[in-house]
């Protein structure tokens, strides 16, 4: 109960922090502009001639690749730079409460941005009869995908007080998670004629796991995959912070 109240307090402050600075508004505007551009211009929403949001969700892993680390990069590096980490961690809360609180705040913010894409759903429903179950599934997948990227950014931001360094490292890690299931890469590995390796590497790809959601399938394996990325990254964040404090 107490833990829950502490997490809530931390999350509330963190979320307020996004909206107190231009970060929140810039992010939301850019996110919506880009997603609109990719869906309608680059994704060929109209040319497809089908009532689905495939052209919308396909772009999510790529768009998140740059945008999510941008909101996650400040989580801990900002605390380290300002010295408020010392303040926060000498409060009567545990380190994991702080980590979870901050992560949840940023995730909530991302979900808010995602919710604001609702006009796309309205549009497609107006134009045709899409399967709204599939759309819902894809939204859940997108949420989990964003959460995983965020947890990774959270981890890299604990590594350094420099937000740029934190940003670059998390982009690289997220890119790796995309590419290891990307056809050009898997085809390259296929040529090595080691099917086991291909399978193992591809299993780590967010693309493979996100695909299921895009088809409207909520497979527990995919959900567990994303949740375990989040869990692992947050746990590692805790280890890194403990390392920082021990000097």
């Amino acid at each position, binding site marked *: 109960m*107490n833990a829950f*109240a*502490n997490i809530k*307090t*931390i999350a*509330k*402050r963190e979320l*307020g*922090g996004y909206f*107190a*600075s231009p970060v929140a508004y810039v992010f939301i505007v850019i996110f919506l502009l880009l997603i609109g551009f990719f869906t309608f211009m680059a994704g060929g929403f109209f040319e497809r001639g089908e009532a689905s949001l495939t052209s919308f969700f396909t772009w999510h892993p790529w768009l998140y690749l740059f945008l999510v680390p941008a909101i996650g990069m400040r989580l801990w590096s900002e605390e380290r730079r*300002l*010295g*408020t980490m*010392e*303040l926060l*961690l*000498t*409060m*009567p*809360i*545990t380190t994991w409460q702080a980590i979870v609180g901050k992560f949840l705040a940023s995730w909530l913010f991302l979900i808010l941005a995602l919710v604001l894409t609702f006009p796309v759903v309205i549009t497609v429903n107006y134009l045709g009869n899409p399967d709204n179950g599939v759309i819902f599934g894809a939204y859940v997948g997108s949420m989990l995908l964003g959460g995983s990227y965020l947890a990774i950014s959270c981890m890299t931001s604990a590594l350094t007080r420099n937000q740029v360094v934190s940003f670059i490292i998390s982009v690289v890690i997220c890119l790796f998670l995309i590419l290891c299931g990307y056809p050009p890469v898997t085809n390259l590995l296929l040529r090595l004629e080691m099917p086991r390796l291909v399978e193992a590497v591809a299993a780590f790809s967010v693309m493979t796991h996100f695909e299921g959601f895009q088809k409207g399938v909520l497979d527990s394996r995919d959900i567990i995959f994303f949740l375990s990325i989040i869990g692992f990254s947050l746990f590692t964040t805790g280890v890194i912070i403990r390392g920082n*404090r*021990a*000097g």
Partner: protein
Amino acid sequence: MIKVENLSKSFGPKLAVNKISFEVQRGEVLGFLGPNGAGKSTTMRMITGYIPPSGGKASVGGFDIVEKPIEAKRLMGYLPENAPSYADMTVSGFLHFTAEIRGLRGDAKKRAVNRVVEMCFLENVLHQSVETLSKGYRHRTCFAQSIIHDPDVLILDEPTDGLDPNQKHEVRTLIRRMGEKKAIIFSTHILEEVEAVCSRAIIIDRGEIVANGTPQELKQRSDVAGAVSLRINGVESAAAKQKLSQLALADKVNVVKESGQKVTLRVFAKGENVDGELARNVAELVMKENWRVEELHTEEGRLDEVFRNITLPDTKEVEK
């Protein structure tokens, strides 16, 4: 309230704090002195549970900071060095946040925030964001945060750093007043502050305690403590010096300053100078000789001199 036993911290091969032990009771204000890099902040960070000790123990109100961190932290207020706070929050938002995380809700929260705003004179900047504040206000905001839950134990790392003389005075008064009911540790390198506020002072140097006592006791370790200084007008310095040296209690006499007709001399006592015995001796001589005295007093000793004497040899070693 605060108990520190053989507390040590090493960063790699470097020993920052070496087996420090002390206790602070309720109603005590402990001044933490030492040159830069002596280990003051590191010690405070260990007591507040920010960094884990490499050895030894620290406990607050009977709760070990490593084994029962939450209970110990609840009793403590902490002002870290440089007074950090969230730059993008308003003063009011920041104080409400810290009150909430200290478990205060509703009316109690409001009352707590109002109390510290009044105590720290923050009314004027309540709705400004922290990054737009001057250093003094920023400092007081963080100080307000540390006392928001009216803690029994206060750990203040350089609470008057960067404040102007008036603000320094306010903060000192505040600390002294709170020190009557709380256990307070504060670090500083302003020596006059120690005399003004502390009931006890510890000097640490290179991670070790080199002196521990009341400011009075520490001052007595000064070379000039107990000596009598006098300024006279219209007397030859050599003659005065010669006369003063002949006093029964005088050990040696120095001419401190000579400008025009005025001579300042310092008479050192042989052994202990009890109850100003030496000053009476000097006064009798002055009257007998009919010197024109402008000033005459017994030196209490100087803290800065003690500080230099204790910590200087070590710094020299480092330079080698």
